[in-house]
């Protein structure tokens, strides 16, 4: 901003709007309150820097900005607060699978977990607004597919899905690939051409069907 005084007022305005808001706000929403004369993004960066070492932080998760207390002060604030209810292992795993693989169908979740997913598990995650139905997969049966939400990113303090813990390593190790794709890669060398073709055909089958040799598939 060229006009220093102007910028200062806009900075205060952005600060006040974020402070008063009861939900995280997008740049567009902030612009709606502050006006489009201001370079909101630049002001947000400036504010975030100002608050970087204070008791309050300005964070951006999935494009939504909000103030929150600094994580290192958690021990002071937690005492009288109702702690967040602990999710069951089934729900935690289901959430992780959706977050790391999204969008995924229920069958794909079940293929990884090896058990059926109760409706209740997905319901709870949807009620928490951490996951949402994200259309249908254009495969036979057109199964519903799920993805995470911006509320998910906000709750877990993730700037984007790229910030999911260890996602780059998992991807590099092929651990986010379906088993049959991994099989194909593992068996790639030393196979006859015929085998390779079979393998490919298997891999191109639907995720859940291609590992039919093993029990426990839903």
């Amino acid at each position, binding site marked *: 901003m060229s006009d220093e005084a102007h910028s200062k007022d806009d900075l205060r305005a952005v600060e006040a709007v974020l402070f008063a808001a009861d939900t995280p706000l997008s740049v567009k929403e902030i612009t709606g309150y502050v006006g489009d004369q201001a370079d909101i993004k630049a002001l947000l960066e400036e504010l975030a820097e100002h608050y970087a070492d204070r008791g309050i932080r300005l964070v951006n998760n999935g494009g939504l900005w909000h103030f929150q207390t600094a994580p290192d002060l958690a021990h002071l604030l937690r005492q009288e607060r109702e702690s967040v209810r602990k999710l069951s292992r089934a*729900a935690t795993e289901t959430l992780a699978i959706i977050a790391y693989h999204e969008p995924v169908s229920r069958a794909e979740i079940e293929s990884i977990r090896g*058990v059926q997913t*109760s409706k*209740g598990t997905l319901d709870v995650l949807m009620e928490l607004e951490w996951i949402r139905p994200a259309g249908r997969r254009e495969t036979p049966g057109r199964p519903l597919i799920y993805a995470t939400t911006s509320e998910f990113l906000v*709750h*877990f303090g*993730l700037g984007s899905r790229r910030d999911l813990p260890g996602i780059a390593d998992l991807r590099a190790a092929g651990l986010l690939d379906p088993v049959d794709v*991994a099989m194909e890669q593992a068996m790639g060398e030393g196979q006859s051409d015929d085998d390779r073709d079979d393998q490919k055909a298997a891999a191109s089958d639907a995720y859940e069907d291609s590992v039919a040799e*093993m*029990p426990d598939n839903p």
Partner: protein
Amino acid sequence: MSESETDTPDIDDAAWEAEAPPRRLAENEPEQLQIDVEGWEGPLDVLLSLARNQKVDLMEISILELVRQYLDFINNAEALKLELAADYLVMAAWLTYLKSALLLPKDPEVDPSPEELALQLQLRLQRLQAMRESGARLMARDRLGRDVFARGAPEGLKQLTETRWTASLYDLMQGYADVKMRTAPAVHIVQTRPVMALEEALQRVSNLVGAALDWTELSTFLPPEFHGQLRRSAMASSFAAVLELARNGRVDLRQEETFGPLQLRARSEAVT
């Protein structure tokens, strides 16, 4: 697999951590298994726990050892409820097959090979393990409402919508004209519409039908110079005229199909 096997449909039971954590395999004492199917997330979960007890990379585990431990688990599972056990037993059967296939001399005809099946099992365990660890890491993050907190008493942002009414001069003129039109005494001038009277049609058809020798379509009797509304009027009048003539026994009528053209001719006895 039965729905009740792992996640019961009851939300509270399924999605939230139970009060008492389910019994797990003690890390170092796989021999002292306390079998409680309710605490497990299915056969794959049991296999993963057993595999992790081998304390090696999942891709290095001994499949034979894993199979042995799993079958032990099943054999010791006296409390295993039968309806819950089906999948565990299917897995046991499959693992028994895998074990024998791995131990027997290689049969090149068998596809997929036991090694491939073993690899597939390892890959699945690896993937489940990866997601389990990722879920734990996710839950351990600084979470909003648990570790970090949003503002406790936000003032809130308000959106007020103010409606501004508008109208143009044209709207005003139109509005006034509408009132005028609506309330002014209406003068209705009924225009004379060109019609062919029934008498006229009766006269014309009676004259012409004598001249026609064979079946003739009604439309040919209409005055050719009539068009549009007038022609339709002529058709209607002529139709009524023909009905009248038929009633008097002067013409015969026929129609080859429903809605087909109406044909008529002078009745022969009337002619003779």
